[in-house]
């Protein structure tokens, strides 16, 4: 394949990945990896390197759009980043010792899980009832502005949430993804942080975690500039347009269609991994 053709195909694919990723909240990485490996026969190592770059691009791009609302809890983000960055680096190191086929299979299962999480009805568990000693000590509780003045919320199960972030970070480093679905479980379900706060805070964490992994991947030679170029430009353009469409469109039907596509890709990835990358 010529350089020009490869660039054009990846550019279009990355644009769609960024667009659909921001419309459905699934992030860019989950589409970039199947596109490169299944679609273009790119080795999983290069696909992971390209994906981690797309994760940073989506995170910073949407953070710039969200930041005006001012509801990111920087303390929660920073506190949990100790877990996510350290475990992400561990994940990249683990990836060095695992057979590529196994990584492809693990990726397939995470993809299935993400599709399921996307369709699941989200329930806001936040409240202002008694909080844990640790949440008080680390000043994690906060408030966000509403029409009726600031609304207080209490953070729960700090240890459980922190542990969940270790798993999310490890998978992020291992697979080159943002691990958004797992971070949501940690923040919404375990720590009971309100959506308004957890969405932007998890996005902040995703970017910082991915940059830690990306530096290690760069040194391992997994970030190839000729792949990173169309991926970066495509994903950023797609995500920016997606964020604009999102404001005035309902995405329920799109999510169902997208979940079916993602499930199909996930099964193909698992099959590819199990049959030795045929």
């Amino acid at each position, binding site marked *: *394949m*010529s*350089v*020009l053709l*490869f*660039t054009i195909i990846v550019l279009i694919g990355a644009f769609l990945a960024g667009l659909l990723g921001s419309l459905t909240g699934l992030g860019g990485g989950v589409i970039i990896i199947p596109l490169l490996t299944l679609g*273009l*026969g*790119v*080795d999983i*190592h*290069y696909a992971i390197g390209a994906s981690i*770059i797309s994760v*940073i*691009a989506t*995170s*910073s*791009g949407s*953070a*710039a759009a969200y*930041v*005006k609302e*001012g509801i990111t809890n*920087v303390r929660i983000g*920073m*506190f949990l*980043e*100790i877990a996510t*960055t*350290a475990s992400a*680096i561990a994940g*990249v*190191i683990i990836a*060095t010792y695992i057979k*590529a086929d196994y990584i492809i299979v693990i990726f397939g299962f995470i993809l299935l899980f993400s599709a399921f999480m996307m369709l699941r009805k989200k329930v806001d568990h936040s409240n202002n009832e008694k909080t844990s000693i640790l949440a008080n000590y680390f*000043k994690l509780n906060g408030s966000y502005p509403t029409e009726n003045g600031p609304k207080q919320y209490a953070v729960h199960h700090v240890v459980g949430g922190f542990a969940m972030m270790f798993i999310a970070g490890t998978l992020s480093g291992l697979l080159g993804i943002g691990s958004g679905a797992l971070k949501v479980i940690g923040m919404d379900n375990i720590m009971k942080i309100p959506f308004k706060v957890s969405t932007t805070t998890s996005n*902040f964490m995703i*970017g*910082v975690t*991915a*940059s*830690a*992994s*990306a*530096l*290690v991947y*760069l*040194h*391992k*030679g*997994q*970030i*190839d*500039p*000729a792949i*990173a*170029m169309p991926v*970066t*430009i495509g994903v*950023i353009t797609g995500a920016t347009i997606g964020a604009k469409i999102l404001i005035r469109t309902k995405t329920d039907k799109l999510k169902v269609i997208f979940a079916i596509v993602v499930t199909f890709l996930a099964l193909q990835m698992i099959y590819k991994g199990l049959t030795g990358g045929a």
Partner: protein
Amino acid sequence: MSRQIKHYLGDKDVQVILGTLLRVGVIVSTSVVLIGGIIFLLSHTHQAISYTDFKPEEAKFSSVAEIFKGLKALDGLAIIQFGVLLLIFTPIARVVFSIFSFLMEKDYMYVLIGIIVLCVIITSLYLDVAH
């Protein structure tokens, strides 16, 4: 009351600076990638490309030093990789920025937590994982 308002304005300022920082980071890095991409494509349009096997030993520009060396030679791929590096450093700049805002609030516990996170990231910059 007036003190509260002042504090609120301070927070807003922080948000505005942060939003600008992120936007500038994304725009600048994408532009650099685009410029490098054009230079690379013009000179390699019809060259064959294949990524079916992972060959880390052939990886060019896999460290900050190599990227800067390539930049001096105006190598398209090095320019792309420099843009990628800028993109990677955008969230890290956000951490540094947060540490400073904690310092201004005199919240030393979070200054320390921020520095720990930064140290972990810096470790990754110097970590040499065997291929």
